[in-house]
């Protein structure tokens, strides 16, 4: 068991940090305030290979491991959780299922543009009536000759409107329950596929979260991902990987909050001393740091298991459960340690706190994670 980062990882971390510091951090406040998708940043990320980290070189990716990928999301999220989730959703929820379940033809067609960041990816499972109860899918896909016809809608889809490739779950056989759900690759611009309402959110405001509408949307039958009826399994497996990404995002948010708080408490003086002098400050920060470090180990372990093809669903659930709770706790404490200033937009901690909340909800609520963990224990 080696807890040290490899030379490669150290160098990646250095590069990730430099990039995040110089290119992403300066825009974070504006991205949040204007609720603007950071188009230019995504282009730069693409240029430097951030959008295909765990994709094999044969498909235009960097051929990296999942720890390298998780670290990338972590470092981005430290300074801007919005940018972190853009990369996470694209990589784990769109590129990964194509890599894992796609035919050779599908992989050759879709992975290179995704890996190079020429196209952005997204994933559509959630519907108005299917959140935690994900199997209650109502979007249908009917085979008609050489095409499937999709009808229905999805909500709360990350990267919607900016993505070019969407992995969409739909029912191909209503009589079969979860075994009647199939996965499809749908390209933006397909007639009958439109982007609906954009959500105004509490946090990760620059992330584009919208409704997807399918009305008589015809896609080639070659766009079926995996086999008919296997879609639910594909979705669940995809979310396992996505949870590593979100846990990494939560980890980054927590670490970012600690970093800015440490700077602040060394500067801010009350009662003639810097806040760092007081034991309360020290103890709070100690707790924040300990929990964040624990999150880190859980995230990296889940990523490591995935790399080694060891079943990691349970580890990913634990990582997400713990890291998201930690992010919420750490950012709340960070605001508190900043006092009144922490409540204003002049300091980044209030944004970090607003950003943290979603990590306990999307890609499987914390309750769902507990279901996964309990099921693993009690089987």
């Amino acid at each position, binding site marked *: 068991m080696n807890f040290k980062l490899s*030379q490669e990882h150290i*160098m*990646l971390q250095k*590069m990730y940090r430099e*990039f995040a510091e110089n290119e992403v951090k300066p825009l974070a406040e504006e991205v949040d305030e204007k609720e603007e998708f950071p188009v230019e940043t995504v282009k730069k990320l693409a240029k*430097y*290979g*951030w959008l*295909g980290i765990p994709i094999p070189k044969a498909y235009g990716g*960097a051929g990296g491991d999942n720890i390298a990928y998780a670290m990338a999301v972590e470092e981005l999220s430290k300074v801007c959780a919005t940018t972190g989730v853009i990369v996470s959703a694209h990589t784990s929820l769109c590129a990964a299922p194509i890599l894992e379940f796609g035919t050779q033809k599908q992989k050759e067609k879709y992975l290179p543009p995704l890996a190079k960041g020429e196209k952005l990816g997204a994933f559509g499972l959630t519907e108005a009536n299917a959140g935690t109860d994900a199997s209650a899918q109502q979007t249908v896909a009917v085979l008609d000759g050489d095409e499937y016809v999709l009808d229905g809608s999805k909500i709360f889809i990350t990267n919607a409107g900016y993505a070019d490739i969407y992995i969409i779950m739909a029912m191909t056989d209503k009589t079969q329950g979860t075994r009647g759900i199939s996965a499809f690759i749908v390209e933006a611009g397909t007639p009958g596929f439109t982007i609906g309402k954009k959500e105004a959110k509490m946090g990760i405001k620059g992330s584009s979260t919208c409704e997807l509408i399918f009305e008589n949307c015809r896609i080639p039958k070659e766009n079926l991902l995996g086999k008919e009826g296997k879609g639910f399994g594909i979705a669940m497996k995809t979310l396992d990987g996505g949870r590593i990404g979100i846990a990494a995002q939560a980890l980054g948010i927590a670490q970012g909050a600690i970093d800015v708080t440490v700077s602040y408490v060394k500067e801010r003086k009350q009662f003639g001393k810097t806040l760092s002098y007081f034991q309360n400050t020290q103890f709070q920060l100690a707790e924040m740091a300990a929990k964040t470090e624990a999150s880190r180990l859980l995230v990296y372990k889940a990523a490591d298991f995935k790399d080694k093809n060891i079943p990691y669903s349970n580890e990913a659930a634990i990582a997400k459960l713990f890291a998201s709770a930690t992010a919420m706790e750490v950012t709340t404490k960070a605001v508190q340690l900043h006092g009144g200033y922490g409540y204003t937009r002049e300091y980044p901690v209030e944004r970090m706190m607003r950003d943290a909340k979603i990590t306990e909800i999307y890609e499987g609520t914390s309750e769902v994670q507990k279901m996964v963990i309990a099921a693993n224990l009690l089987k």
Partner: protein
Amino acid sequence: MKIVVCIKQVPDTTEVRLDPKTGTLIREGVPSIINPDDKSGLEAALQLKDEFGAHVTVLTMGPQQAEAALREALAMGADRAILLTDRAFAGSDTWATSCTLAAAIKNLEYDLIIAGRQAIDGDTAQVGPQIAEHLNLPQVSYVEDLKYDGSSFILKRVFEDGYHLVKVGKPCLITTLKEMNEPRYMSVMGIFDAYREKQIEVWNLKDITVERSYLGLEGSPTKVKKSFTKGAKTAGKVFEVDHKEAAKIIVDKLKEKYII
């Protein structure tokens, strides 16, 4: 086109602090970086690689840990990396360093040699021009812009009060300024390639042909007689008052000192 870029690993001197109690330098925890002027030179070389398919070799003379700088250069896109290291080189001043580097470069093919104008630790700006002299090459220093017209290099050579646009043929040596460009980041695949596909060659004294008496501490014409930190000035008075009061204090003091 073949380009050799000389780089140096340096401590990030902007991060160095003086220990307030002892007055000595705190060197621990100071990150090592590729010298900024050199990094811009490397970026210029990589741009020539992008445009003309040039082959880029990075060379550094230093201790074993300088390998990290070479690795970074490979991750940015350099094709070949050479670490020139040997105990015999220790204590070299710029003459000895330039002799050593020139000897190594003689083993390579090149149309263009790039060195950063100066290193942020030594701050001499001497090694580049001295290498050019040892290799008998035309030199252009303080280069802020570089273009290649197919056969010659067109360079913007800056001075304090303007610049010259100059043309120089191959082979030549230039020294570059960090103002020249924004060096690219390492890419993710670049980093993996640097560790998985590329090698760092290590050259010792035996791998180069050079006059031994020119090398290291012994061969350096300049010697350090002593080094010291500048003593802290005795502090003046500090006032923590509101801005109106502060303004009065300043003006009164300036009048007292006949400054106004």
